[in-house]
């Protein structure tokens, strides 16, 4: 349609002429995509442990060696004072404390049992659990070693060897054998960036015209409202696709070495749907806001929720049921899931049927609501 052509031409001219806007849409996201995945790494490593050794025996020294040899821990303190060690925890220099009581070796041999006291900074629950379980494992292996050393050589099969019952776990990591965190984060961050661009830009753009008054001028012309809306959505749809492509192939592949495993057509099909849904949200926000500031505040609010509840940073499965429900009402959650599935695992259409259906639902829901509202109020 001719009218649409003119509308689109105007939009693109305005966008590209806006010198302040362009870097925000194109450069800032790409820089963020470049840097942020480097920061995202949950692995629990280099746990700082402060050891209080009141025993100074062969056993305590062996334990210390085992701990540092395990590779999980870094000894940041070795002394006599509980106070000093505790202060290290307070200052976040140590993550846990191990206290070996006086007479540890002697009492273990003579009385058959001894306790070790461990205190863990549990503010970060997950880190604490893992740290504690690693330490426990080191202690258990150490314990087993001691028992073994007390076994008389070549002895009764039944008694002796049960001590050695070993279950060896062989772990394999599929789809990302080197446990590369970037593989995980890059798609997610890319999705987030594209989401922000589309929602913010779309909402702000329309509200700006409202504020300035050019919308009124358009309302007087014979341009039908749905055409006007299309004229607003299409440019950002295209920009969204473009930024995504540059992000995925430019940075994702060239810098991080992520090679898509699955069907790209499928991915882009989903992306297109996703963008429609997002733009619907942007449009919806623009119908309720009167000033750019309001639009911004509302958009910001939803972006925060979308991002933090999307499974990008924390897992959706760990949420309580009601939060999980909310997370599933969040289009970003689904796209991140699909991105990872198609990119990294090569999942096919059958696998992503459900999220795709949800996305169609979202797109229809948001856009219909937005358009109805637009016709009434703008």
């Amino acid at each position, binding site marked *: 349609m001719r009218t649409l052509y003119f509308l689109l031409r105007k939009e693109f001219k305005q966008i590209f002429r806006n010198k302040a806007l362009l870097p925000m849409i194109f450069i800032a996201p790409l820089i963020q995509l470049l840097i942020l995945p480097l920061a995202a790494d949950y692995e629990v490593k280099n746990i700082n442990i402060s050891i209080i050794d009141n025993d100074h025996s062969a056993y305590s020294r062996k334990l210390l060696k085992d701990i540092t040899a395990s590779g999980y821990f870094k000894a940041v303190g070795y002394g006599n004072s509980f106070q000093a060690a505790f202060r290290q925890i307070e200052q976040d220099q140590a993550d846990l404390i191990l206290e070996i009581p006086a007479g540890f070796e002697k009492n273990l041999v003579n009385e058959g049992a*001894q306790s070790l006291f461990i205190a863990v900074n549990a503010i970060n629950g*997950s880190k604490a659990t893992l740290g504690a379980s690693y330490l426990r494992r080191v202690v258990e292996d150490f314990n087993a070693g001691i028992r073994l050393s007390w076994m008389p050589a070549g002895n009764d099969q039944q008694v002796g060897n049960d001590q050695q019952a070993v279950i060896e776990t062989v772990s394999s990591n599929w789809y990302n054998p080197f*446990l590369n965190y970037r593989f995980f984060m890059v798609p997610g961050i890319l999705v987030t960036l594209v989401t922000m661009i589309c929602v913010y830009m779309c909402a702000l753009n329309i509200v700006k015209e409202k504020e300035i008054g050019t919308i009124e001028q358009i309302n007087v012309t014979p341009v039908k409202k749905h055409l006007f809306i299309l004229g607003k959505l299409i440019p950002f749809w295209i920009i969204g696709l473009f930024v995504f492509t540059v992000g995925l192939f430019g940075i994702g592949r060239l810098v991080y070495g992520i090679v898509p495993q699955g069907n790209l057509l499928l991915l882009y099909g989903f992306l297109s749907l996703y963008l429609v849904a997002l733009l619907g949200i942007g449009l919806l926000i623009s119908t309720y806001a009167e000033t750019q500031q309001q639009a911004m505040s509302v958009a910001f609010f939803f972006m925060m929720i979308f991002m933090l509840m999307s499974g990008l940073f924390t897992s959706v499965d*760990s949420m309580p049921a009601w939060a999980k429900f909310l997370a599933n009402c969040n289009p970003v959650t689904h796209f991140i899931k699909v991105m990872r599935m198609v990119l990294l695992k090569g*999942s096919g259409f059958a696998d992503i049927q459900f999220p795709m259906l949800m996305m169609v639902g979202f797109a229809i829901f948001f856009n219909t609501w937005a358009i109805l509202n637009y016709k009434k109020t703008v």
Partner: protein
Amino acid sequence: MKQFTSFVRKEFYHVFRDPKSLLILFGMPITLIVLFGFALTNEIKNARIVVCDYARDAASQQIISRLSVSNNFSIHQSIMSHEELESSFKSGNIQLAIVIPAHFNDDLLHLKHAQLQIIADASDPNTATTLTSYAQSVINSYQQELRSYHKSGLQIIPEIRMLYNPELKGATNFVPGVMALVLLLVCVLMTSVSIVREKELGTMELLLVSPFNPMMVIVAKAVPYFVLSLLNLALIVLLSVGLLGMPFQGSVLLLFAVSSLFIITALSLGLLISNSTSSQQTAMLISLMGMLIPTMMFTGFLFPLENMPVALQVIANAVPSKWYYSIVKSIMIKGLGFSAIWKETLILLGMTIFLLTISFKKFKTRLA
């Protein structure tokens, strides 16, 4: 002084007469704290796993029952073949699989050595390593039980105490982080627009023509947001303690004092942005697109800062919320006093002075 008061009064009118923005200003932090306090956690719970049990004997049953009892796992299915395994992973339904080979119990009993396989979906490496660790823990403790059936003494008993957060609540780690994030972003967002809007509308000229010190204009703009942010903070603290059950070990006064400083830092940053841009749209985009993700990532509550490459750790130091997060944890959760946080406080003070100085410089040059 009287002039200043009239400026401040005008700014208050601006703020309170925009109920929609006000709603967001207050509603957002509250909603976020409650939402995230309950929903976000680093722990992995109820992870869907499958078990491929080729052995089907006493030992394997024991292991499976231990896994199902643990609240980290939720056994989705028992499957019987490797092909099913592949498709389960691909469909995204499961995150971990345990494969127990045939003759497991026999091997354990007679050979004293058995193997089992843990396969993790490492497209999410974090979940993969965590779940693998959890699974290994469960299997390990089973192994321990086997060994200790035949006690021969020499038992080392580790007594573990979890400090500060014995219930391992996710909120304890996240709420201070969300506090820092929200206060920073809301303050920056609001003030970054304030000056630019007047420039765009043209009312700024009026102010500049008046015999008032430009510094007064700037500071007056920040005052209502300062007051609102303190109110916000009070609400957030009340909610975290009352609703989320977060501990508050330290001094309330100290928290509010340092928070006031942080709020001023955030406001100063917003003012700087406002002074440096010529359109509302740009100011907003910088605050939103430019700051949202970096602030989230570099505050330190989502990802451990110590894992990041050194270059990024240095960048993180420039993010005010990073220092504030540390301060909040020290005061609220660890119950420490000023002696523990003086370094962070000094840094925030330095940042504030720096930001304000540049703001004023920039504002002045507009007049000339």
